[in-house]
């Protein structure tokens, strides 16, 4: 009843964990049986190792948090040696999230992973990164660049290609259509919302980088609106992300048009929250006599 089929992939449940909030799935193995999840998305991997931004990198906000981690990660080489083999032991879909600073970075990173004999199901592409060749403008704010990037990656892999969109754009529909035109199999959204915090005692911003990314329940309405806009503009499967912490939240995303959901910040409160949501969804389906959650996709009612 919770099984969702997308292309040739079968998801045992529609709940995945979001990039940067669940590590590589092995850190939490003491607390969570990751095999019960629909899938996991790794922390963003970049071509070279990244130290990340100077502290402070996080702060709490009402019903949410700000972060500016700066894509701290081991880099693709170490990722292939140390992390990729661990996924073989997991009986769930693993999507490797890739970030970069030029189209070439993304392509090289993906190609490096493609070389390995791995069990991953595909890639999620983080386009909320500054393009150093275009004066630091993010890939994900420009439809042409998004299409170009997607096509470059599409040419290099037959695995599932998910484009993860940023909400910090004027018209997310245009970006979603560009990603689909470039060959994306799925769209996931949203990444964090630009925000900032201020400490009035010190008159300093709460993050070292001044601006950061807002996540958690505070952004759920923004995420729902974006998912619905994407649903109205493209026909590929959609993964809803943003402030999800209960089955009710997940169902709202499905009604807005999502096929699957990812749980991010809520993992920090409860690393098993994804699994809890799965069992709540099961009860919901039983109670409402829903045969497949696909039946409620986009069933939002209004004139």
């Amino acid at each position: 009843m919770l099984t969702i089929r997308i292309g040739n992939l079968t998801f045992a449940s529609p709940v995945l964990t979001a990039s940067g909030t669940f590590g590589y799935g092995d850190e939490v193995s003491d607390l969570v049986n990751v095999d019960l999840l629909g899938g996991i998305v790794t922390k963003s991997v970049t071509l070279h190792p990244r130290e990340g931004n100077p502290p402070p990198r996080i702060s709490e906000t009402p019903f949410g948090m700000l972060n500016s981690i700066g894509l701290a990660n081991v880099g693709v080489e170490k990722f292939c040696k140390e992390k990729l083999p661990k996924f073989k032991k997991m009986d769930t879909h693993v999507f490797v999230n890739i970030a970069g600073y030029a189209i070439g970075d993304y392509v090289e990173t993906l190609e490096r992973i493609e070389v390995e004999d791995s069990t991953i199901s595909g890639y999620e592409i983080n386009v909320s990164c500054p393009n150093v060749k275009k004066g630091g403008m993010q890939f994900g704010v420009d439809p042409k660049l998004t299409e170009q990037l997607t096509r470059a990656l599409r040419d290099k892999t037959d695995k599932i290609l998910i484009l993860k969109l940023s909400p910090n754009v004027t018209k997310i529909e245009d970006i979603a259509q560009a990603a689909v035109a470039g060959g994306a199999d799925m769209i996931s959204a949203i990444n964090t919302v630009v925000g900032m915090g201020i400490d009035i005692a010190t008159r300093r911003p709460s993050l070292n980088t001044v601006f950061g990314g807002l996540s958690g329940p505070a952004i759920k309405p923004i995420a729902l609106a974006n998912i619905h806009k994407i649903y109205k503009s493209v026909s590929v499967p959609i993964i809803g992300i943003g402030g999800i912490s209960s089955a009710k939240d997940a169902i709202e995303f499905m009604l807005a048009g999502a096929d699957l959901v990812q749980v991010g910040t809520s993992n920090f409160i409860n690393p098993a929250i994804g699994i809890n949501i799965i069992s709540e969804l099961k009860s919901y389906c039983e109670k409402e006599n829903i045969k497949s959650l696909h039946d409620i996709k986009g069933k939002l009612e209004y004139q």
Partner: protein
Amino acid sequence: MHNELATIESNEQISSIYQQMVLSAPLIAKDCHPGQFINILPDPKWTHVMRRPMSIASQSNGKISIIYKVVGEGTSILNNLKPGDSLDIIGPLGNYWTDFDTDYPVLLAGGVGIAPILYLHDHLLIKKIPHHLIMGTRTKDEHFFKEKTNASIVLTTDDGSYGIRGSVINALDSIVSGKNSSVIFFACGPSPMLNAVNRFATDKNINCYLALETLMACGFGICQGCAIEITNNSAISQTYRNQYALVCADGPIFDGKDIPLC
């Protein structure tokens, strides 16, 4: 690491500003070491997105305790919990103090930093390792030491209302100079105190291990939010990081030599 629903055994005020909560948490109690911490969900309906980390202050017979100061919403909720209530905790987290067998340990605690230091003190007593404990607070009524103080337990107050006047540093000189063998420092407390201890140790070429605190989202190395700047990468478990360390996973205990003096 366990996610345990602990039962509160007691939750009492132990001095003018400190509370001690004893929790029955057999899984965590079995695995924990001095210096480690737990990450607490203050309330099942907690609407913040981060748990609240607290050092483990004692461990015995399936029980652990925390010593805390009420500073905000989370700690106020903890303060209102009653014996028999349950509390969702994750732990034990972080690294822990070792190396107390070679040099003479001097334990230094400032304010609520006493929590992990008390646990280490208990541990050394059980292992019959002679050591000194220096604990500093602002005033007399903040002290809660029930144990009869003896020559190896030194209390200080900022205002001189009890014990030695001044910070724990004021008590250090006589202790260190009175020892023939080399000493080693284990310290936890507010940043200015840790910095002073680290400076003292650096000047006298003494080994020194500090327990640090930062804001934490996950508590076990996933979010990368608890990074601090370091001067040396000996502390780091994952070698791609040279400039930053994660307090929750590489720490909370750091070699003073890796921490920049300010």
